[in-house]
């Protein structure tokens, strides 16, 4: 009878160890990975905000985190496109041309940069994803510059730019 106590204790230790190690494989370091990754981007807070709001992030590797950010880029681009469409009808003439140029730029982001980046990340050729993210940032920057300071798209352009440079920095970690 007295043997049972140490035996039970032993079983308890073994089980606890087992459970703890299993827990670690489910949540290896990923809260840490998100933080480590975001530290290497120009905008830590924004990076954390976007990644933390995606349920896939905690179990993603760096490629997965990059793909999440590319998806955020896609959303930002579509938001900008919608805003441009809203504005174009009622914009003053001097803005119309610029809005059209911006529409073209955001279209390029959506039809070229984003698909290229997704394919590049999925297939293990990350440099084309970095190129796409850099280009998206440049397009947003060019769009903003085109308004000579009176931009109706500043929030959207800033968002696009910020998200793109974060994405680019994350992709750089894969190279």
């Amino acid at each position, binding site marked *: 009878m007295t043997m049972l106590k140490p035996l039970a204790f032993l079983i308890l230790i073994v089980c606890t160890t087992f459970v703890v190690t299993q827990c670690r494989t489910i949540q290896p370091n990923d809260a840490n990975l998100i933080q480590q990754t975001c530290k290497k981007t120009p905008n830590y807070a924004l990076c954390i905000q976007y990644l933390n709001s995606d349920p896939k992030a905690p179990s993603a590797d760096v490629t997965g985190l990059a793909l999440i950010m590319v998806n955020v880029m896609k959303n930002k681009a579509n938001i900008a496109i919608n805003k441009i469409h809203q504005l174009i009808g009622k914009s003053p003439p001097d803005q119309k041309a610029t809005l059209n140029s911006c529409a073209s730029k955001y279209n*390029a982001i959506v039809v070229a940069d984003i698909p*290229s980046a997704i394919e590049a990340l999925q297939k293990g*050729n990350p440099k084309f994803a970095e190129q796409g993210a850099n*280009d998206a940032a440049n*397009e947003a*920057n*060019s769009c*903003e*510059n085109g308004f000579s300071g009176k931009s109706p798209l500043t929030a959207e352009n800033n968002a696009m730019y910020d998200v793109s*440079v974060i994405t680019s920095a994350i992709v750089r970690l894969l190279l």
Partner: protein
Amino acid sequence: MDRTNNSNHDVPFSYVSLPIGPHEDEAPVESRGKWKARPVVFCGLLVLVSLVAFNGYKGSNGNITTLTSNEDLKQKTIPSHKWKPVSRGVSAGVSEKSNRLFTKSNNIGGMLFPWNNTMLAWQRTAFHFQPEENWMNDPNGPLYYKGWYHFFYQYNPNGAFWGDIVWGHAVSRDLIHWIHLPLAMVADEWYDQNGVWTGSATILPNGDIIMLYTGATDALVQVQNLAYPADLSDPLLIDWIKYPKNPVLVPPPEIEVYDFRDPTTAWLTSQGKWRISIGSKMNKTGIALVYDTKDFKTFERIEGILHAVPKTGMWECVDFFPVSTKLDIGLDTSARGDDVKYVMKVSLDDDRHDYYALGTYDENGVDFVPDDTNKDVGTGLRYDYGVFYASKTFYDQSKERRVLWSWIGESDSEDADVAKGWASLMGIPRTIVFDKKTGSNLLQWPVEEVERLRMKRCKFHNEKVMPGSVVLLNIGSASQLDIEAEFNIDKKDIEKIKQTNEEYNCETSGGAANRGALGPFGLLVLADEGLSEYTPIYFYVVKGSNGNLKTSFCSDQSRSSLATDVDKSIFGSTVPVLEGEKLSLRILVDHSIVESFAQGGRTCVTSRVYPTTAIYENAQLFLFNNATEATVTASLNVWHMNSAFINDKQVKLKS
């Protein structure tokens, strides 16, 4: 596509032997003997001769075209306002060093340049290889077979951006005039479903052609596959068969499944086996794996690696080949001997540049040893200091030369690429030989066949260019040029200036606007007459301690365009100039690509240029000298270049 800028070349030029005076028409009449129409022929010839003579005389004084006027030769300083950054509004925002990412600017008064079709159409090249539309990247499997040069390339049939990659195919008799053929390979097997990527050709002694290429499988693993022509009796090699038991190589266990690509051409070992190399990485060390095979179907992993260099990252597009140290010819990839050195070349994923090192190869030890460990693979010399990546050589057995192909990407925005419907070019193929004079680098030079495109030549001899002057060269429209130039700095100027510890670096120099005692001087290409846009290609000489001269060769895109959404880096490097050598350069200008070669190809710089104004008949060529002390004497030959009409021909095949 608008190719009408060639229209001013419809007039007969001086390469056709022209009688210059009326007395030269007697000969044809004499040899014809009795003929009733003789007087008519005589008169017709007289008319023709005078027309031609009038044209030839009007255009220039024979072959020597003078500069615009004496005024231009006087001490005309470059107006300082013209040398300030031209991109309005984007103040300090555009960083020369950034890899195509502009820093965000809080700018005011920025100007957006909506690219119009006229500007975009001008960008298409006249004599560089490019498909009719869409995206292209790495050159693949170049080879010479049965009288034809074959060229394959990474191609996206669906857009002007990377993706959905398949193998394009084209053939040529002369490496310049190309005929597009149907796609050679598409992504139709599980082992290349996600990409038919880069590969190389090996021609076996019995005439078989082996193509090894990387496939991205349905499970996104990078593997190597074998393919071969369906019909070797077809010189156009239209159809290709993929080996049914592909893949022939899968990533070894210690390598990541996405770090295993771009197999090389094979070379014969002394054991009679074929050996290939595949680039990869372990952590941040770039490495080259080695495999042997007898039949290209089963491979044996050779222990160790051909070479490794820490901190260089993933090695893409490895190339490994012998060069002769004695002869100016190329060598077969399997050549070996006493007068042979080896070149190891890699494309670094990290910085998108191609590096090479010269060294020795120990077959038994499977070891490449660089001649200079300070200039190792990935840390030393580059093939080209501009936009130039994923390059690959092949041995052209018909002319005993080694020829280099390279992918030249765009430096503009994706928006422009989508609008113009295409992205990327190939550089003009270059021969590669060992530089016997320095013993420590390669020489690259455009293949001689490109010279067949030369038309009218304008020659300038010993033009003195004073410090701080710009000289318009009156050659006419300047979008398609082949330029050979030599420069001499007055010895007295060199002697009188002080020695300096200056280390000039093209990339951080601020470009041609920043004046030194002995530089910069050179040419302004794709420049408009008002100099609102121009691209200086120049030398910059520094007199260091011991009075030794150090020369840099640069291509400056910082003022190449008024547009704000194009890359405006400055590219270049130092170039060895030996005792007694003049400074010499060659430039190929072909619309939006400029390829520059210094000292016979010791240092090469390729750049992409996208002017908004200096296009069509507004594109001009200038000589310039922005040094403060040196008077420079320049002699040049400038040829107008014909088009190669690459995208005017389509081979339509019966199915």
